[in-house]
């Protein structure tokens, strides 16, 4: 096991290094002057800024030298300056990350808590009404564009029915709880501020449902397919021949096997939610990484986009590493 983890970790580090190279190459092979792209028109019009920038990133040196400088700066946490906010990209990311983590986690839990049981029941009661409902839900989930779903939910539940709060993490007049983790739900509990907690929770409902929709579809589909596959394995028949109840057969024999691919998919889905909530956050004015990404893209804020891409790639790698490790824990055959 330790050997396996070390090996996986090594692979992840190698991949992370390669990812930095990819990002560096994208950033430095942009058509036009990289200095111009990365400083923005305003700053680039100042010759002093331009000069300092060229010197810092050694833009006149060959590509390899520049890559090593890039790596060195990276090691110090320097992802460059955002053109739009005129602040270090890393600071911006640190600022926006908690909102995204909160939303993604709630959305993911929602989809997993509904999707896994739904998939299991749909498989066990194949062709029953549960199966048909599950199929419908998952098809709509994977087929509707997130940005549109977000709009519709907002239009119906906030605009028309007025039973859901509007965009944002909190009511415009409310104050954020004292910052501990940056997650409003947890911080408000720490502060004992139940009004804020309720407000934060209410604001989470619509965006997390939207975010969960597509993931829910995927998780339900995968769970159902995987359970169906396992239901016809010989060991299930053996379990039945032992006299186990159907419930025990499902819980003890089918699920431990069937959930292995679901864990992989779930991990990837969570990674996607953490990194890909762009549309949902934009529509719900959610002050997270996704909206930051959207704004940076809209403003062609190049350093910010590259910074986000890098952070997101590393997050992806870490989650993949965790998937690999949990895979090994769940399936004894992985490590020989």
């Amino acid at each position, binding site marked *: 096991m330790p050997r396996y983890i070390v090996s996986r970790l090594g692979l992840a580090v190698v991949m992370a290094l*390669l990812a930095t190279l990819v990002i560096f190459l994208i950033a430095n092979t942009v058509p036009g002057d990289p200095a111009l792209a990365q400083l923005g028109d305003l700053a680039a019009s100042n010759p002093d800024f331009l000069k300092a920038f060229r010197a810092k990133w050694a833009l006149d040196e060959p590509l390899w030298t520049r890559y090593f400088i890039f790596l060195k700066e990276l090691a110090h946490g320097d992802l460059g300056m955002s053109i739009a906010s005129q602040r270090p990209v890393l600071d911006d990311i640190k600022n926006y990350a908690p909102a995204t983590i909160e939303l993604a986690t709630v959305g993911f839990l929602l989809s997993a808590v509904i999707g896994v049981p739904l998939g299991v029941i749909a498989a066990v009661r194949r062709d029953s009404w549960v199966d048909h409902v599950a199929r419908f839900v998952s098809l709509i989930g994977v087929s*509707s*564009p997130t940005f*549109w779903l977000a709009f519709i939910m907002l239009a119906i539940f906030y605009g028309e029915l007025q039973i859901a709060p509007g965009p944002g993490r909190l009511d415009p007049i409310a104050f954020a709880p004292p910052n501990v983790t940056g997650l409003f739900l947890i911080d408000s509990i720490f502060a004992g501020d139940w009004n804020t907690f309720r407000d934060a929770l209410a604001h989470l409902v619509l965006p997390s449902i939207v975010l969960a929709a597509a993931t829910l579809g995927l998780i339900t589909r995968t769970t159902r397919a995987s359970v169906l596959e396992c239901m016809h394995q010989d060991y299930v028949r053996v379990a039945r021949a032992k006299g186990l109840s159907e419930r025990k057969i499902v819980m003890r024999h089918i699920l431990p096997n069937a959930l292995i691919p679901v864990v992989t998919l779930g991990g990837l889905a969570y990674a996607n939610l953490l*990194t*890909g909530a762009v549309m949902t956050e934009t529509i719900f004015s959610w002050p997270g990484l996704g909206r930051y990404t959207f704004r940076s*893209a809209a403003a*062609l804020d190049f350093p910010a986009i590259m910074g986000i891409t890098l952070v*997101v790639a590393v997050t*992806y790698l870490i989650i993949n590493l965790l998937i690999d490790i949990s895979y090994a824990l769940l399936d004894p055959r992985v490590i020989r």
Partner: protein
Amino acid sequence: MSVTAQAGVIAVDKPKSLWRRNFRRYGLPGIGAAIIVLWVLVAIFAPLLTPYTPELVDVTKRLQPPSQLHWLGTDMLGRDVLTRLIFGARISLFTGIVVVLVAAVFGTLVGGIAAYARGKTEEVVMRITDLVLCFPPIILALAIAAALGIGATNTIIAMLVVWWPKFARLARSMIIVQRSQEYVEAAVVVGYSPARILLRHIIPNSVGPLIVLVTLDVGNAIITFAGLSFLGLGVVPPTPEWGSMVSEGRELIEQWWVATFPGLAILSIVLGFNFMGDGVRDWLDPKSRRW
């Protein structure tokens, strides 16, 4: 539950509804195909279907609700939503199909060569796919599209970069499975050349899952392109495109029609491809019990 039912009740129970099974087998894929054909026809005959032009700005008519004149209302600049929707079908269908087909052909070739060459080539190719797959697709496409600049062509290129690796992986694994089959060994023993074995024996037996993935994936590509357009990267305004239409209407909760209809259009076409993809899978692999 089905397991207990089969193990418990002995009485002759009603035979499975043939109607329902046939609907699953032919009905839904049929509906999917009909939706797709409909949209293709709409895209081809777009100018004949509407009296307006998609770019015609008329600020005096801005944000009109659906009416006899404008069936789906007008947008902020007074453009007819239905007209833009009809013309928008062109770019959505085109990008979705082009991205998936080009990625599938390129990915299959790369994956096939990797599987066949083995050794170092395979190692390098598969590491590259790993590398691409270690970025979240939307973000990587976003980064590349941002680097290349706004425009449909650049967005398509960005999507292609993100899209081909999954086909390379699938093709490689399919070919590896086929390669050790006895009929391929028999072909080796007869003396055929590697190219002939690959083209005539292995690939015809590997295309099934690839076709399924292609069909199911066109929907994905359409959604992704619309998403990038929504973010302002896909098409240059005022080109009509569904994602950017939703984007234009996203603040207009009162004027719901501006964003709702383009979204429904995306939903319908994606559902169409999903229905058809499921049908193709059932047809190629009747034993599969997925939906």
